[in-house]
């Protein structure tokens, strides 16, 4: 019996030890999986590559310093090779700039719109329809004139006004056009924000408004469609999209007004309920008094 129990306990010990190894292996596998997921996710807007690993930045440190502040880097979207070609991780200069890596060095002025347009297809298409469409001409701006080449920030409406006056006198027709587009877009964005705030406030007490949320989302994505159109610098073109946003928001606002009216009706209903309760309780009380 003793031998058997010793064997059982030894086997159990062995099992426990094997179990521990399996546990460690599972943990290692999990860590490896996490690391692998992290690596593959880099190109999909996840964590950026450490700039110290990018060999280009060793010599082009000024560009590297600017690039780390950009939205392209911070969202882990791009590295040097995406615009310049080459191999940013190669230690040897010859390998880094080898022709087979597609190294082009500094892009030519006429190629800039095409390079940016690889990802930003909408803005590139509308830019080609606008007054600055002859970007090969030195008098006209290219993408990087307004958005910068390495220090690319998230585009805002303020950028439009800042950029126009760099070349145009502030009260000139082109600069005023930029201001008009900006204020129109800002107006729509503010309108959307106001409606979103009202919806948030009213949704707490009216679950029926949950159904309005997709409508607001639709209006928001329509407004987003206006972003690339701004590159055509044509108010009429943007107007069409903003009118669509306006009518989508009007439907949402209509539902909000209905909700406010419904809320008022519900308040009256509560008052009615309590009047009914009060009358009945009074009669019950009177009956009780009568009995006593």
């Amino acid at each position, binding site marked *: 019996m003793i031998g058997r129990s010793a064997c059982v306990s030894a086997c159990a010990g062995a099992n426990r030890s094997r179990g521990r190894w399996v546990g460690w292996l599972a943990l290692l596998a999990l860590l490896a999986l996490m690391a692998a997921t992290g690596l593959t996710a880099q190109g999909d807007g996840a964590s950026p590559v450490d700039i110290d690993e990018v060999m280009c930045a060793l010599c082009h440190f000024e560009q590297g310093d600017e690039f780390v502040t950009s939205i392209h880097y911070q969202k882990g979207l791009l590295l040097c090779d995406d615009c310049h070609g080459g191999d940013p991780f190669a230690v040897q200069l010859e390998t880094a700039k080898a022709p087979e890596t597609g190294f082009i060095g500094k892009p030519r002025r006429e190629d800039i719109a095409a390079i940016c347009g690889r990802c930003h297809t909408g803005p590139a298409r509308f830019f080609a329809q606008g007054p600055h469409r002859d970007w090969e001409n030195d008098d006209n701006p290219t993408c990087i004139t307004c958005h910068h080449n390495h220090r690319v920030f998230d585009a805002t409406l303020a950028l439009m006004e800042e950029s126009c006056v760099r070349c145009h006198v502030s009260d000139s027709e082109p600069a005023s056009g930029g201001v008009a587009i900006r204020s129109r877009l800002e107006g729509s964005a503010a309108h959307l924000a106001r409606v979103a705030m009202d919806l948030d406030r009213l949704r707490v007490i009216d*679950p029926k408004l949950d159904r309005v949320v997709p409508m607001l989302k639709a209006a928001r994505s329509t407004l987003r469609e206006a972003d690339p159109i701004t590159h055509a610098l044509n108010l009429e073109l943007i107007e069409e999209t903003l009118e669509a946003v306006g009518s989508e928001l009007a439907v949402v606002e209509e539902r909000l007004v209905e909700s406010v009216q419904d809320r008022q009706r*519900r308040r009256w209903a*509560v008052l009615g309920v309590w009047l009914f309760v009060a009358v*009945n*309780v009074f009669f019950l009380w009177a*009956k009780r008094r009568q009995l006593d």
Partner: protein
Amino acid sequence: MKWHPITAVREWLEVRFELEPVFRLLRENLTKPVPPHVNWLFTLGSVLAALLAVQLFTGVLLMISYKPSGQEAFQSVQHITYDVPLGWLIRSAHNWGSHVIVVLALLHLARVVVYGGYKKPRELTWGVGVALLAVILGFGFTGYLLPWDQVAYWGTVVATEAPASIPVVGPLTREFMIGGTEVADPTLGRFYVVHVILLPLALLSLVGLHLLLIRYHGISPLSGTDQPEPGSEEILRRGGRPFLPHHVLKDSAAIYVAIGALMSLALLAPPHLGEMADPLVTPLGIKPEWYFLPAYQLLKYVPEVVGVQVPPLVLVLLLLLPFLFDRSPHRHPRRRLRVLGALGAAAAVIGLLGLLGHLSDTRQTLLGKTYDFDVLGRPHLVEAAEVGGDPPQAEEGRGAGGSP
């Protein structure tokens, strides 16, 4: 003699059936006097019964449009909320009713404990009452899943994981409960059947038995169990009043007020419906209904295998209260201060666990200072600079607003 419809029906029945003994029994029991100490607190049971009837009524109305399958449940609740005329109000009344009933059941239980109503000869009435509390909690547990939104789904996943930790029978119990290894379509089917058939049958039988026993024994006096209980005439002489019509009028007034309160809640704060259940996306801050929070929080402090057995144990201890813990002949609260103190302390611990469960994993501002409550409910002061940041886990629930 003036014609009256009730008298006419009664006469019609009496000619055909031997009903006089039944009517006499009913009359005798319904007119039994209630003792003079019976106050408004003694209307809680009637209010509870009335609200359970409201739940049955609204539940039947919801069943007309509800579809108990993983593919259709969420859409059918959306249909009830958005399309069915007054569907939102019926759903809201049913939802709020479930909360109000638990509150009233606990208050009713507390009232019986304070007045020693569970003592001889009413131990069985008490036992049936405790069983009714379990049924009410069962309604809450099974009904929580039925909207089939994210909170419902993941709340049920968390709640059904705990029983699996019971040695030997645990995994099998869980599998039997949810109809497989994961909460899915079969779980919804099972919970639905339990919610709309088995529990209502149990509820109706137990409520019937409870009422029968209450009328049979009458309302408990304040005198000790070692003295003979006063008869009807004695109660009337001491200032008692007949149950019908005197106390029934009081009950009716309380029922009106309770239904008024329920309708106000249903009208002014209807419940939200979250996103449709998605077994692949776990939302943050999932918590059970407030009345399961003490059990939920307890599982964080003690091994799961122990914690999961505590709630049923509490119900068993409640059942055994008149047999094991409060065996003195006294009913008057002033003569049972030790027992009441111990029970009060136990209730305070349960309440504290519930509060910690509510606060855990949230950020709260108290007296002008902001605290992050960790998973165990411990507060951590948040520096002013960090206040704008995200809390450890954003609380998401059916009531959470916020446009995307």
